[in-house]
């Protein structure tokens, strides 16, 4: 019990602190699978990149194609509709020098590609780049003086599309100055008027250089610019290049999507595979280790707890290996990635987006503190309540006998109400935190919209950039909130790991010698030399016990309960180590044998027979496949077990349920004899059952015992006088000491403890 308390304390301690060493130790299990992990992490990087790129792709499509109406069309006046096939050469010769100059990197075939005929003119839409080059050129010309301006004014005609009040208008035959005025759309620079299907724009004074405007075929410039409303057919024709652009984007999107799906599947699979394999290994290591621990450990630790360690606690680690670690990595990458992309797109807008981050960080830390505290309180109260519940269900009889139902109900209600309060508080913490973070994300959105819109209006950024920022700001808050929750899960995984490591660090108390002996055969001479033994190093259950048993001898130990008889049996197989003295088998200290060789030479028949789930056969041969069916039958026949086995509906294949509950105590005993016989040990160690067995079976057992003991050194703790009488020597134990020894007759003659015991039995 005391060890139980100690253990409980360790569990509390483990949960209360985060141990980096445990995390490091957990990571060492990933080592054999580092390449899986590396590929997986690489894919995570790639996937995060793709994930970040997807909104940019759509944003670019918005800027370049959907908002693409703003890029001007270059009019190529002298080309026929039919001649458009060889427009390539014409374009080259006729094109504006400034465009040509800025277009040295654009191949002529490329430029010609977009040429099409509209209302009798060959026109070509400028790309975003060309449009920007034209704007820069014109701005430069305006600064450098009139000469350059007038040269530009006369050297090219443009058409410009305008979106006003959800309608598209096309302005034709503009010189570069008029085109730039429309494209820039500064509403202070002109007045506009809309009337059935046309948009009239009157530039303000000085908005255009003199002689600039919209040009008619006759060569007259009009300063009032007239736009015609475009219908769907016109738009289809005019915006064919935008449409192609959208298609290209779509195709690219499909590729990215497919990559995304494939990589995602591979990544998830690799990660889960790693996690499962790691879990498999940890579980195997743990089980192997538990199995090696000494019996003393099993005396002190309830099996239920060990099972929980090997099953549920290991399972809890799965979450960490195949989920949390990578998701943590992913979220960190995502946050950094988002921040980097945003910063490269627009530093100012990015910085404005980050303004609230410190607030979020502080809030998250505070939330984590509070939620952990409330969680702990709720956990403790839940445990309290469940302990109370399970205790009171077990003790319901006492409650009813003492007529305390009402009081217990009130007590339960009190605990339940406290738990309710704790859960309620926990609920409130989440109910406040989540909307609060949401509110912050809205504030961030508002900040981005405000600064972004202002920048769009100033012409510093495009609408596409604003779109990307709007998308990003939403996904920015997600990983941050997730990080907070993932840390909590990680912590509970580590708590489980600590419990597992505590067992793994437990040294087996029975250590084999460095070069253990594995003799081919053990004859079976047993000698105890002044053996002192205590289970707990304090209260000696054996005091200075010495005896010799020759090979083939049968020795019985008798004595009252607690005299130390069973302990002697446990010591021969070295399930416990003694404090003082020596135990020799065939003249050699048992500490020098390998445990396997030693125990294989000893056949144990235990007081309460443990049967495994399976069938009769498997309970005789256990999991040793070298024992044939024939040997199983033979063993069963020798110990009189065959009789009842053959009567079972399934014979040797009859299923045995948990603990063999369908078999009687006597049958179980016979089965265990068969089991021992099948293993053919040199030494037989027997703790005779005291259970009530019907007389018929008792006779069978007696006979079976005779067969079993034949030719084997036998040590038994006997309760039945009939067995004792056959013994070569009877040792009477009392309070840890040997008090009498001799044959049955000799001892009876002594008139000591044995005689009293004998008389007691006779009654």
């Amino acid at each position, binding site marked *: 019990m005391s060890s139980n308390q100690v253990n409980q304390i360790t569990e509390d301690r483990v949960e209360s602190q985060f141990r980096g060493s445990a995390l490091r130790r957990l990571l060492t299990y990933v080592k054999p699978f580092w390449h899986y992990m590396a590929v997986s992490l690489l894919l995570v990087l790639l996937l995060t990149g793709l994930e970040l790129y997807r909104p940019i792709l759509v944003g670019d499509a918005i800027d370049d194609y959907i908002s693409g109406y703003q890029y001007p069309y270059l009019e190529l006046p002298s080309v026929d509709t039919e001649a458009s096939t060889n427009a390539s050469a014409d374009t080259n010769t006729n094109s504006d020098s400034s465009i040509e100059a800025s277009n040295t990197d654009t191949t002529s075939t490329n430029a010609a590609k977009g040429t099409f005929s509209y209302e009798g003119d060959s026109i070509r839409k400028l790309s975003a780049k060309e449009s920007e080059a034209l704007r820069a050129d014109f701005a430069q010309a305006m600064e450098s003086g009139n000469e350059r301006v007038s040269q530009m004014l006369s050297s090219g005609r443009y058409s410009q599309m305008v979106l006003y009040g959800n309608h598209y208008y096309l302005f034709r035959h503009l010189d570069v100055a008029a085109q730039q005025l429309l494209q820039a759309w500064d509403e202070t620079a002109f007045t506009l008027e809309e009337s059935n299907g046309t948009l009239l724009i009157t530039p303000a004074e000085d908005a255009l250089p003199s002689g600039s405007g919209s040009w008619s075929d006759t060569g007259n410039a009009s300063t009032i610019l007239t736009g015609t409303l475009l219908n769907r057919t016109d738009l289809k024709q005019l915006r064919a290049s935008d449409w192609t652009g959208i298609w290209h984007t779509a195709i690219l999107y499909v590729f990215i999507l497919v990559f995304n799906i494939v990589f995602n599947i591979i990544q998830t699979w690799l990660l889960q595979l790693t996690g499962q394999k790691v879990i498999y290994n940890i579980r195997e290591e743990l089980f192997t280790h538990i*199995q090696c621990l000494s019996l003393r450990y099993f005396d002190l630790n309830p099996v239920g707890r060990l099972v929980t360690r090997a099953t549920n606690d290991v399972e809890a680690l799965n979450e960490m290996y195949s989920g949390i670690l990578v998701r943590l990595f992913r979220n960190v990458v995502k946050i950094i990635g988002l921040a980097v992309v945003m910063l490269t797109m627009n530093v100012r807008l990015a910085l404005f987006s980050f303004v609230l981050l410190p607030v979020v960080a502080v809030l998250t830390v505070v939330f984590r503190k509070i939620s952990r505290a409330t969680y702990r309180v709720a956990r403790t109260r839940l445990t309290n309540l469940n302990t109370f519940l399970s205790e009171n269900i077990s003790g319901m009889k006492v409650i009813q006998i003492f007529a305390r139902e009402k009081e217990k109900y009130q007590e339960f209600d009190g605990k339940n109400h406290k738990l309710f309060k704790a859960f309620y508080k926990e609920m409130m913490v989440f109910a406040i935190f989540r909307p609060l973070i949401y509110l912050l994300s809205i504030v961030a959105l508002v900040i981005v919209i405000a600064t972004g819109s202002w920048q769009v209006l100033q012409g510093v950024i495009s609408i596409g950039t604003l779109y990307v920022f709007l998308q990003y700001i939403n996904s920015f808050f997600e990983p941050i909130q997730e990080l907070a929750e993932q840390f909590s899960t990680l912590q509970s995984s580590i708590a489980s790991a600590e419990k597992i490591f505590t067992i793994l660090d437990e040294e087996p108390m029975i250590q084999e010698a460095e070069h253990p002996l594995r003799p081919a055969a053990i004859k079976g001479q047993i000698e105890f030399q002044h053996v002192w033994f205590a289970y707990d190093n304090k209260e000696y259950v054996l005091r200075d016990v010495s005896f010799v048993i020759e090979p083939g001898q049968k020795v019985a130990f008798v004595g009252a309960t607690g005299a130390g008889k069973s302990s002697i049996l446990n010591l021969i197989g070295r399930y416990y180590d003694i404090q003082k003295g020596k135990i020799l088998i065939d003249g050699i200290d048992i500490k020098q044998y390998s445990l396997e060789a030693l125990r294989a030479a000893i056949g144990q028949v235990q007081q309460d027979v443990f049967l495994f789930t399976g069938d009769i056969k498997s309970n005789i041969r256990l999991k040793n496949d070298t024992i044939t069916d024939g040997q199983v039958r033979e063993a069963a026949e020798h110990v009189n077990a065959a009789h009842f086995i053959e009567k079972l509906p399934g014979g040797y294949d009859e299923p045995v349920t948990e603990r063999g509950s369908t078999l009687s105590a006597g049958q179980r005993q016979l089965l265990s004899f068969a089991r021992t016989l099948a293993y053919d040990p040199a030494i037989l160690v027997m703790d005779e059952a005291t259970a009530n067995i019907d007389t018929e079976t008792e006779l069978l057992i007696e006979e079976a015992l005779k067969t079993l003991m034949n030719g084997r050194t036998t040590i038994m703790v006997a309760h039945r006088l009939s067995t004792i009488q056959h013994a070569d020597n009877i040792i009477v134990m009392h309070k840890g000491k040997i008090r009498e020894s001799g044959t049955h007759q000799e001892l009876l003659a002594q008139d000591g403890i044995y005689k009293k015991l004998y008389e007691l039995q006779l009654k």
Partner: protein
Amino acid sequence: MEAKRKKQGIFLYYILQYKWKYLFGLITLFIVDMANLYIPQYTGEITDGLQNHTMTMDDIWILIVKIFLVGATLALGRFLWRYFIFGSSRGIEYRLRNDMFGHLEKLSSRYFNEHKTGDLMAHFTNDLNAIRMTVGPAIITAFDAIIMTIMVLAKMVLHIDLQLTLLAVIPLLAIAVGCYYFGKEIEKRYTAKQEAFSSLSDQVQESLTGIRVIKAFVQEHQELAAFARSNKQNMDKNLHVVKLHAMFIPLLDGIIGISTLITLLYGGYLAITGGISLGQFIAFNQYLGMLVWPMIACGDCINNFSQGRASARRVQAIFDEKPEIFDEGNLAPVTTLDGSISFQDLTFAYPGSQYPALHHISIEVAPGETLAILGRTGSGKTTFANLLLRLYNTEPGQLSLSGTEIRRIPLKVLRENIAYVPQDNFLFSSTLEENIAFGVKGCPSEAVVDAAKAACIHDNIVDFPDGYQTMVGERGVTLSGGQKQRSSIARALMKDAPLLILDDSLSAVDTDTEEQILTNLKENRAGKTTIIIAHRISTIQNADHILVLEDGQMAEYGTHDELMARQGIYHDMYEKQQLEKQLEAI
């Protein structure tokens, strides 16, 4: 209440107790869902305005303020529905837990013999949790998913474009359909995984329970191989589930991607040809994002609801269990018992058993007398006590106390008038004082000390650092068997009841202490009836009547001297115990 709960079902019965909160919660949720749609709309308007050149910074500021206000409303709403509905679900959990415990208190010993504590606990943990998940998050999710889908679709159709909506939503339908089939398949694989896990648990459990056999037969290697097979099986089944998961999320992503693609193509076409505006295009993208969640939620909800229903059925089964021992009408107006007992040819068999545990028992005990019962394990001694305490019902007319037929005595009166020391000496995890004073309301501490002294446990208690305030059980001291027994005797003596039953309660007490306790009892119990069930003859030889039971029959009955003279079972037992005594003395 029982009938109403049965008729309405667990869910409705408890939800109706919080109907206003649920109503307010759902209304807020509805408002939240509505308001939710305005944010994409306003952002769309701003982008449109920016592009169309129809908006100045002032106009934008107005929209920004609107966005903020909507956002603030949303945040408040999200808090409120959590407060209303999650709060109620915790309340339901609380009430249901109380009601379950209250009902268990009414059930008879038979129920607790037939149902393992662990199984009953599972109803309080797993089932209760599944029910709470259903009345909390699952209801929210279902309502939210339905409302949100309808409203987002309406927005898409009314504000943007019918055809675009239809085209974009087609792939999303695949999610809903896929989730359904996926849910079925995953459930199958999940069950297989659970089975593999529990067979792994069984394997470990058995290996470790049978560790002595395994070590004795040097089966560690074979056992490890068997474990490795279970471990592998568990891993494989896990991977089988994981395989589906690994496909699911990316494919989901793919389907959403297809919707985005359709939006990009057809929406883009509409946008460049003036069918929809750029702002509408952007807003549509945002709406699309809002539809993904409800689609996934559908699958979760179905799962949650089916689990919740199964749990509710199991909990209902507890409520359906009828108490067997209760005050039947026709009660006698008794408030105290005088301690007299009369068995009139009583024959009793446990429910479900063919063989009577007691046969033809006829005994009369007058107030103040002592009755001792001896017998082997299984001879029916404890049944005797069980019947006196009315843990089981007897046939009418076979057992009377104070001259009243036992079933006509109010249960509370009966049990308050009998003090009982059970065999297993069950103590609660509270202080020793509380344990001793268990049967008595508001007792003075002097009385507790007196009882402890009479039970010879006082000296042990004062030796503990915390004295009477020492906690019993895991978190406190661990009492030895004898200490537990004596505490349990003190608890019974506290009641000072007209009838005291000691059920083999001195077995773990050494002879000297036993004698002391017996002397104290004689003093304490003067004029009151005492029944002692025992193994040791020394305990009972001074009793007024001694009953020796064998296989439920009255084998011998009389005083010590009478029975000794008979030279029967009693005499044999006496001789044997004398011998044992001598042996101890060596």
